[in-house]
């Protein structure tokens, strides 16, 4: 996933949590659905064969108007349903617990390439028909692959539940893969790689940052795949990948919006109930050794001015310290008054922008810090100033005002981009698939509120050890000439 998408994800991270926190206090047009879930399950199971029976796994009642429920069918398929009737639309997402970290060396990129192929032919639909049917019905469809997951999403107008359940279940079991499709889609993906990495300096810097940070762990290779690996992937590889990971017991369907829970369960039982569970291979855990010294790389790219990306290994999304690192990031990079933003962009004018991003992965990720410098700035100067600031924040507690400011910023960031059923579904699916329980998502706000000044200093001290630092520097291909205007020169 490129940087832009990461920022989007960050911006919407937990966005629904604040909605859920505040909605109880306000009047709402949303009608409450107070169905007893056990009765609901009994009704759905009546007369159903054993294989297609459903059970209630848990219920998260945020308030009287908003309830999230997780169910599981006998074949292992998990279903998360949240009704909200604010607009006549709903989101239907299918999350698979397979991402680029499940790939093998020499076949990197297959998870993402396969995501593309899943829009092709099935036993029941000719090539291209899936998209045609979806668009004719007004659906907005897409998919995404990242390190820990792959998900397929549709936003649909009300009333299209049966349709989307039928088509999604069909492609979970009936894909038809052939050499012609692979050839064409391989070229598309290679073009995507050219677009996002090979011809994009930010993409290249990001790729090198991960490859330099993770020497053994699969987070070190790019989700889009190495170009040589994309060429090496065979049709047999794709068929094997499909048969291995695309099964009901490796998936969660998330449905949010203007739907009735009973109708959702009945539609899913009808379309997925007969699918058999498969044996999912146990993941071989790769532990990345702790670094013993700082690593650095320098790249020459089509840049107008130098860029620096500094990475530190950061806690996993489910780690108790993740919230404190989020607060730390706000103090350093938040708004235009964050410490590094203020120092480097506003006061010293050494950079045109700074940005911090904390990974939210299944395992330990990277706290990324991006610095786009002015063309006359020596990258070493910025490195020194950043190191000094990180040392300061590791040794002295932040001020009470800084802490409150960071909490406020994180709290409001949770509401942005809200409203949309697709965003809500994405958060539920992301947390369920990444940390194994969508309810973790609802704890985000309280975790931010619980972070103390000392917590921030403690995690900073732990993270910012020099030996844990990776520095990737991008320099312009040729030393840029001064661009000062010539007297009387043309525009």
């Amino acid at each position, binding site marked *: 996933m490129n940087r832009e998408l990461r920022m989007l994800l960050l911006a919407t991270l937990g966005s629904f949590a604040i909605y859920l926190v505040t909605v109880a206090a306000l009047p709402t047009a949303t009608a409450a659905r107070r169905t007893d879930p056990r009765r609901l399950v009994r009704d759905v199971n009546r007369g159903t064969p054993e294989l297609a029976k459903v059970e209630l796994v848990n219920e998260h009642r945020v308030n009287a108007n908003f309830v999230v429920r997780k169910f599981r069918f006998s074949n292992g398929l998990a279903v998360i349903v949240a009704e909200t009737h604010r607009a006549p639309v709903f989101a239907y997402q299918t999350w698979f617990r397979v991402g680029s970290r499940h790939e093998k060396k020499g076949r990197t990129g297959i998870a993402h390439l396969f995501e593309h192929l899943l829009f092709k032919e099935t036993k029941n639909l000719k090539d291209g028909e899936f998209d045609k049917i979806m668009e004719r019905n007004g659906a907005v469809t897409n998919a995404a692959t990242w390190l820990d997951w792959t998900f397929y999403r549709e936003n649909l107008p009300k009333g299209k539940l049966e349709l989307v359940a039928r088509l999604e279940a069909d492609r979970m079991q009936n894909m038809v893969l052939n050499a012609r499709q692979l*050839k064409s889609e391989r070229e598309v993906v290679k073009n995507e790689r050219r677009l996002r990495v090979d011809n994009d300096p930010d993409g290249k810097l990001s790729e090198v940052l991960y490859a330099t940070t993770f020497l053994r762990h699969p987070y070190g290779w790019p989700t889009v795949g190495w170009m040589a690996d994309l060429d090496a992937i065979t049709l047999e590889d794709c068929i094997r990948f499909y048969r291995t990971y695309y099964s009901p017991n490796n998936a969660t369907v998330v449905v949010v919006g203007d739907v009735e829970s009973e109708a959702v369960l009945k539609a899913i039982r009808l379309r997925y109930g007969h699918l058999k569970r498969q044996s999912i291979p146990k993941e071989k855990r790769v532990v990345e050794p702790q670094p013993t010294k700082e690593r650095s790389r320098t790249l020459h790219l089509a840049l*107008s001015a130098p860029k620096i990306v500094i990475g530190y290994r950061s806690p996993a999304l489910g780690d108790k310290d993740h919230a404190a690192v989020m607060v730390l990031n706000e103090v350093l990079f938040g708004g235009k008054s964050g410490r590094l933003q203020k120092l480097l962009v506003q006061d010293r004018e050494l950079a045109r922008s700074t940005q911090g991003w904390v990974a939210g992965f299944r395992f330990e990720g990277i706290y990324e810090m991006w610095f786009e410098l002015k063309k006359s700035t020596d990258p070493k100067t910025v490195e020194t100033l950043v190191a000094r600031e990180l040392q300061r924040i590791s040794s002295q507690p932040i001020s009470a005002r800084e802490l409150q400011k960071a909490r406020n910023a994180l709290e409001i960031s949770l509401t942005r981009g809200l409203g949309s059923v697709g965003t809500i579904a994405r958060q539920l699916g992301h947390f369920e698939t990444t940390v194994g329980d969508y309810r973790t998502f609802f704890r985000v706000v309280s975790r931010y509120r619980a972070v103390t000044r000392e917590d921030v200093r403690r995690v900073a001290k732990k993270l910012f050890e020099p030996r844990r630092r990776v520095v990737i520097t991008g320099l312009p291909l040729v030393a840029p000439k001064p661009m000062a205007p010539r007297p009387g020169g043309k525009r």
Partner: protein
Amino acid sequence: MMRPLHRALFALLLLALPLVALPTSALAETVERFDVDGIPVRLVQNRDFDYVALTVVLRSGSILDPPGQEGLANLTAQMLRRGAGKMDQAGFEDALDFLGSRLTINVGQYSTSISGDSLGRNLERFLELVSTMLREPRFAEAQIAKQKRLIQAQIEALRENDARLGASFFQRLLFRKHPLGRPTTGTLDSLPKLSAAQIRGYYRRAFVKENLIVGFAGNIDRKRATKLVRTYFGHLPSGTRTRFPTPRAKAPTGRTILVVDKPKRTQTQVFIGHLGLQAASRHFFPLEVANTVFGGTFTARLIQEIREKRGWSYGAYSYNSVGPELGSYLFRFYPANKDCIPALKLGLQLFETLVEKGLDDKEIAFAKSYIRNSFAFRVETAQKRLAEALRVELLGLPDDFLGRYLERIQKTTRAGINHTLKTVLHPKDLVIVIVGTYATLEPQLSKLPGVSRILVNRYDRRWNPKDNAR
């Protein structure tokens, strides 16, 4: 990794300005329109959570930049948050960040938008900051110099992103000397010359009550909105509402290619198009249907032929961009070097076929079905509905434009659509911009049909395209 469909949908959102029949009509009607002391207000309530999004729009933009003062509107607007009232730049930003609010200032050709948000409980404090910024900007010399240097660095950074670079060159080549061809940010030559006096002069002319529109979306009712607009925006000075210049643009003749020459590219960015419609044009709705079929969705002709059948580009889409006076029609894709010329030939051929043969009944029915069914997503949230209402206002369209959007799409006919295609699209007269490595493209460029001129501009040089004659 996402498929690029969202880009096409985004373009449709920008252009379509919709609203509809049931059940989405009920949502559309939730936009409240009223005036407070002469200031138009657009309000969309959403009481589900304690959050309010604000958009303050001024009818004033870069099209007003005098020749030689390109970037004046943008520089003036960006200066608003570099110190206002009793707060210096750092004090203002700290106060804003403390609320957790975000604030962005975007200057377009016809408008200046100040967008931000706040938790409902902090709304008054947030509006106080916005109001102070609008009424009492300091325009301190040292801060002006800083802002200029920042914008200059941003202009130079444009060359790092091939897609943005291509879009920028396309805009300039398409509109040439028309004001719409000038970069909103200004140029590396014009920026240093802009003075504090010019900034203050522009501010006095543009930032007047008569140019203001205020929009709220979120947990706020009409009574509170009225009080807040009166308190925080009612004291903006009065002046004269902006009258935009309406010079005629000269349409391109023949096919002009401009290669933005960038070394070591493995991929190209291709932009093809010509001048487009005024928002109020009677051809707008027929062209919306036609554009959906040509390059507006993932099953459209362009992406099927270029991506799905041949794998030549990750994306291939077309855009019917309208403006208050003039717009553009554009299609684009991004093939690898080796596929650039074949993809370009195919793209041109598809465009010619679109105009010559038009659409068939099946395609029209599909496009109408897609537009009708997907319409709900354009009005799904309060913020989307506010954005649509403000666009209608800025484009000078009637209030019922949104409400009648689907009805008017539905009324389009095959004959009318195909007539529009022949009337407003011009496959022989096109501007084509390619960002790529010239040396790899040169041998094939002249073989493209109907090309009247080939220009080259180094990617890291100022706008100064030259004929490719060596």
